[in-house]
């Protein structure tokens, strides 16, 4: 038995130790790693009717991945332009949502973290309570606001700012707002957590030494909050790239989200191997993107866990 395991059992006792270890292993291996491995396996197999599974045709193939790049064999185009466009658009949009969320949430998190008192608790509660309502309902609520005859258009047209209703949904504004809103807490709380532990004297010291407010943020607050910022950005990016409900409900008819393609493959086409291949591509690309950005901004994996 390795040293750290022995210490773990010594500290927690054999019974509690085994129970905790078992639960953690069940969670990571049973609920995450094994299903994902099975998806990985699916993604390399052809889509066969049940009787032929395990038969001579059931061999490993790269067909499903090729499909994403080249489209159906004998298709009219050289590349699968439609799906690739959706794929990259999803990634870019997820990055945009993340940046937008960061810009919106950093000041809120800073305010919450550096101020004390009852009103802060009330503000935090006001941020949390809307999340008791489920995601679908919140998305439909946004539809009511952004719809053609929705609250926003009624106000804008009624007050004479616009002559005709603006189609927020077709222009994806509703989608971005919905995605941004859906993950706002996941951005605010990691940043808030870090900034709350920042000694206010540091901010005053920087001010006293002549720094204007933006330099205080650049040089003192943001470097300190970096672990929280990276943690928040990672979560918001991963979750918005993988979101399904918001694009389904708030997306325009012409603009698909990559997750919707995956959903279609699994559900409408009953092509699990194809869906699995798409999902794996999305997952791996997102992970690589996050790792690359972590390198650029010099963030350690340990910081994300903070």
């Amino acid at each position, binding site marked *: 038995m390795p040293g750290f395991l022995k210490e773990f059992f010594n500290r927690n006792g054999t019974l509690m130790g085994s129970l905790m270890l078992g639960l953690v292993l069940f969670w990571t291996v049973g609920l995450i790693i094994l299903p994902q491995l099975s998806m990985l396996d699916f993604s390399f197999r052809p889509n066969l009717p049940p009787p032929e599974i395990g038969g001579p045709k059931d061999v490993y193939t790269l067909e499903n991945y090729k499909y994403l790049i080249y489209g159906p064999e004998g298709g009219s185009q050289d590349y699968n332009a439609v799906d690739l466009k959706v794929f990259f658009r999803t990634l870019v949009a997820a990055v945009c949502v993340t940046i937008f969320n960061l810009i919106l949430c950093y000041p809120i998190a800073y305010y919450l973290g550096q101020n004390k008192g009852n009103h802060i608790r009330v503000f935090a509660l006001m941020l949390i309570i809307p999340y008791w309502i489920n995601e679908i309902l919140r998305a439909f609520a946004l539809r009511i606001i952004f719809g053609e005859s929705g609250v926003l258009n009624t106000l804008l047209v009624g007050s004479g700012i616009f002559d005709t209703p603006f189609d927020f949904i077709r222009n994806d504004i509703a989608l971005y707002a919905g995605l941004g809103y859906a993950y706002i807490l996941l951005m605010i709380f990691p940043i808030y957590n870090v900034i709350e532990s920042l000694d206010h*004297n540091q901010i005053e010291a920087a*001010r*006293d*030494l*002549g720094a*204007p407010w933006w330099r205080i943020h650049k040089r003192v607050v943001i470097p300190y909050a970096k672990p929280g910022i990276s943690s928040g950005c990672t979560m918001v990016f991963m979750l918005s790239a993988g979101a399904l409900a918001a694009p389904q409900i708030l997306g325009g008819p012409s603009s698909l989200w990559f997750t919707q393609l995956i959903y279609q493959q699994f559900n409408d086409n009953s092509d699990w191997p194809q869906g699995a291949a798409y999902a794996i591509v999305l997952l791996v690309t997102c992970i690589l993107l996050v790792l690359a950005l972590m390198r650029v901004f010099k963030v350690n994996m340990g910081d994300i866990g903070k």
Partner: protein
Amino acid sequence: MSAGVGVDLENLWIRFGDFVAVRDANVHIKGGDFFSFLGPSGCGKTTILRAVSGFLEPSEGNVLIGGNNMKGIGPNKRPTALIFQNLALFPLMKVWENITFSMEIAGASARDRRKRADELLDMIALPGQGDKLPSELSGGQRQRVAIARALCAEPDVLLLDEPLSALDLKLRQHMRTELREIQKRVGITFIYITHDQGEALTMSDDIAVMRAGVIDQIADGKTIYNDPATAFAASFVGENNVFRGKVLEVRGDQALIRTNRSGDLLSRISTANQGKMNVGDDAMMFIRPEALSLAPTGTQGDHFVTAKVNHEEFEGNSFNIFMEGDGGKELKVAIPNHGQSFDDHSGQDMTLEYDVHNAVAVPAGELAAE
């Protein structure tokens, strides 16, 4: 040294809601002085410092630095630098970056900053430590880095908010000397906040004694120690024995006081209260433990006190005798140790003698908490 920039507080009031943190403070701090605000926690001394540094706007009155009214000028625009109680060094910046932060803000080049940092590191006796992080330094070293960071901004006035309170006793005493030396070398005005009378007395040119938002006395350390203006100043600065009573007779600059339990005792009236104490007024008389000496038991007179000994202790440089006191607490006598023999007197009556010039009378007032 008079080239330094002075600081004036004029009719300064600071209120937080109904609470008055500073009540009508008027202070003139001479340029190049080491000036201390001394008082117990919560007396408003840190509030005054925040008003000088610009983190807090006074409710009424003015802060003048070098004769210029600082109203509406933010902390980043004032010629002051503040050293925080917890130092507030930037943990993610190296020592040299910490020290030259003010230059970085002003747009100085990295080379100039590095050079200045090295000069200041030499000055604070930490040569070659510039590339460390603050967390890699000891408490005393961090203390010196905080001083260097503040001095690098070339302030006219350095404000220090109990910067030594986190250090252990030995280091604290060492840093007192060092701070005083640095102040003499750079020649700028230091305003020092402390609740430690030892720090205030050893370092300051002048001291303001504060109590509950009010400045009781402004004077040099010797004057405050020997000639306190109020009962609070007398009891807060140094150890003191108090006798409560009423003025029986005023004789020039002396007063005969009918004490509650120790008979009629003669005392000098403190300078600030001369002409203000009248017959029949409630008064307090203070005598330092070291100003009392033993007299033949039973001697009577207006500078003799007889009381029962509660207990005694040997402190090395002195024998301390604790007797039943007059003002609600024990009367302490410190007899210097010259190697003489010393018997235990517990439970016996003893008579003490004092020189009238070493006793000081002030109007009755609030005493410092133990």
